[in-house]
């Protein structure tokens, strides 16, 4: 198990380096921060002094080498905008995103397991057809459209929910709902498909031959076997949620890492952007390792393969 984890972590290091490299150079293509932070009337000397102060006048490879050596010392630089350490800004924003994504994923998986399992019990039954229709609609609704319509209907017209912010549980409804619709729809279909497959396996008949009731058959015998495909897709969707937070956090003014990233791109706040992307990437890699561990927990055959 340990060598398995070690191998996973090692193989994750290379893509991580590529991400860091990409973000570093792409960010610098968005423009010169001096244009934003100095008045239009600033002289060339003032601009040069600004660049020299923040090290933007060094050749790019030298800047990158300096950046890497700083990261190795866990120094992520300072925000241009606030002069605070970038790491602090990022870590302050991160919990808001994690909470949002975590609650959404929990609701999506729990809801999809229940709806998908019930739909799979009798393929092509009315319940299955209704679940199929709703999940397709849910999976194909654009989230930004849903968010804007939600704000219009529930916040502006009806006044039931706030348009933005994080104060009170009502503020969570629209952001979570917006993030939820797509993963929920997709997961219902995945769970349904995996459950239909599992329920047609001979071991289900054996369980019934032992006198197992419907609930035992569904949740003890079939569901765990339907776990692997569900987990694969849920993992993918969870990664998407961390990324998708950008849209939702911008629309709802949610003080998370997505909003922080957008703000730091608009303000050429390279240090914060780089720190935010690095943390997001690390989260995604951690998530993937977590998923691999879950596979092993679900299926003893995977566990044995991982030990070997």
């Amino acid at each position, binding site marked *: 198990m340990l060598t398995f984890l070690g191998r996973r972590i090692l193989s994750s290091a290379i893509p991580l380096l590529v991400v860091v490299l990409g973000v570093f150079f792409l960010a610098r293509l968005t423009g010169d921060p001096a244009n934003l932070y100095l008045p239009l009337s600033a002289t060339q000397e003032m601009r040069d002094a600004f660049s020299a102060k923040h090290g933007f006048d060094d050749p790019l490879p030298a800047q990158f080498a300096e950046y890497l050596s700083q990261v190795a010392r866990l120094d992520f630089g300072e925000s241009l905008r606030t002069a605070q350490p970038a790491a602090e800004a990022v870590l302050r924003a991160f919990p808001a995103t994690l909470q949002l994504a975590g609650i959404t994923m929990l609701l999506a998986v729990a809801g999809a397991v229940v709806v998908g399992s019930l739909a799979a019990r009798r393929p092509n039954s009315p319940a299955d057809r209704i679940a199929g229709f709703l999940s397709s609609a849910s999976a194909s609704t654009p989230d930004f459209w849903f968010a804007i319509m939600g704000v219009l209907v529930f916040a502006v017209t009806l006044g039931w929910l706030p348009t933005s912010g994080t104060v009170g549980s009502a503020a969570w409804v629209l952001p979570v709902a917006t993030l939820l619709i797509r993963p929920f729809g997709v997961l219902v279909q995945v769970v349904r498909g995996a459950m239909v497959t599992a329920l047609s396996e001979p071991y289900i008949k054996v369980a019934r031959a032992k006198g*197992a009731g419907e609930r035992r058959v569904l949740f003890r015998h079939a569901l765990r076997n339907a776990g692997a495909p569900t987990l694969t897709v849920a993992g993918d969707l969870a990664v998407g949620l961390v990324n998708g937070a950008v849209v939702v956090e911008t629309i709802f003014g949610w003080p998370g890492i997505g909003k922080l990233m957008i703000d730091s791109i608009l303000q050429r706040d390279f240090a914060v952007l780089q720190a935010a992307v690095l943390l997001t990437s690390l989260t995604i890699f951690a998530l993937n390792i977590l998923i691999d561990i879950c596979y092993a927990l679900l299926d*003893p055959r995977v566990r044995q393969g991982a030990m070997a």
Partner: protein
Amino acid sequence: MNRHGTPGTSGAESTALEVRGLSVELRTPGGPVPVVRDVGFSVGAGQTLALLGESGCGKSMTAQAVAGLLDPVAEVVGGQVLLGGRDVLRLGPRERRGLAGPELAMVFQDALTALNPVHTVGSQLAEPFRIHERASRGAARERAVELMERVGIPEPGLRFRSYPHQFSGGMRQRLLIAMAVALRPSVLLADEPTTALDVTVQAQIMELLAELRRETRMALVLITHDLAVVAEQADQVAVMYSGTVVESGPVAEVFAAPRHPYTRGLLDSVPAGHARGTVLPSIEGAPPRPTAVPAGCAFRTRCPLARERCATHEPPLSATGPGRASACHYWKELADA
């Protein structure tokens, strides 16, 4: 005439399972397709009845209908399944589940896919006790270990925590049998229990089934296409063709003097008893698809005895002697030959 004749039980034994006029249809987009037609048989306690037939003849479907394990596309459309005198087809799902295990159990063909890959064999073996006797985890575990020992799993205390993929095919089949006989059912349906196994292992599994049958005096319904297995293991045989029983009776008598041309054809196509170098006889043609069963006698298109009456009149399964029955208009010609 005895259309719902229930040959099989020899007089002295008490009947454990009796099936009468059982019919099953598949629901297809093109309309219902009959796959089991008016099947009847019975088995006494401690006896073995073989349901013999080719793949697709409806023998597995019959067993699953009896056990209440048909897929949703298949439906029992008629008949009775009498278990201890009670028609289980008239019971509700809850009552039926109550019988699954303590009264009626089933062993399946492919033991690899019949065991749940994500649960330990121990927990799967303990399940009957947990479900039907509400046994505690510890008590169920003890019973499961005893069962593993009984069916010949070495080191059951250790192997209890193993998963199905860590066992050989023969061991998996033993586990499956252990699970089925856990609550000492009065009837055990075994659907091709040895088909997926090596020949040497096959013999061990058949021996285990025979031992358990003697020990618990359960009635065994052995579903197979293997004539040798029938000859060695069964007391009674019901030969199925195209969804229905065409001949039945005591194995020794039926094999010695078949009274249906299909049974005769099957027995003739066994290599033993034919000289080397001669062409092995076989039954011409192939069994009809369930959607295109010939009118009259289903076997007539392949039958050497067929004549006009066979196309218009379906021969009912009728008694031809004590404990024997045949569904052929001209069985006497076979008997006389």
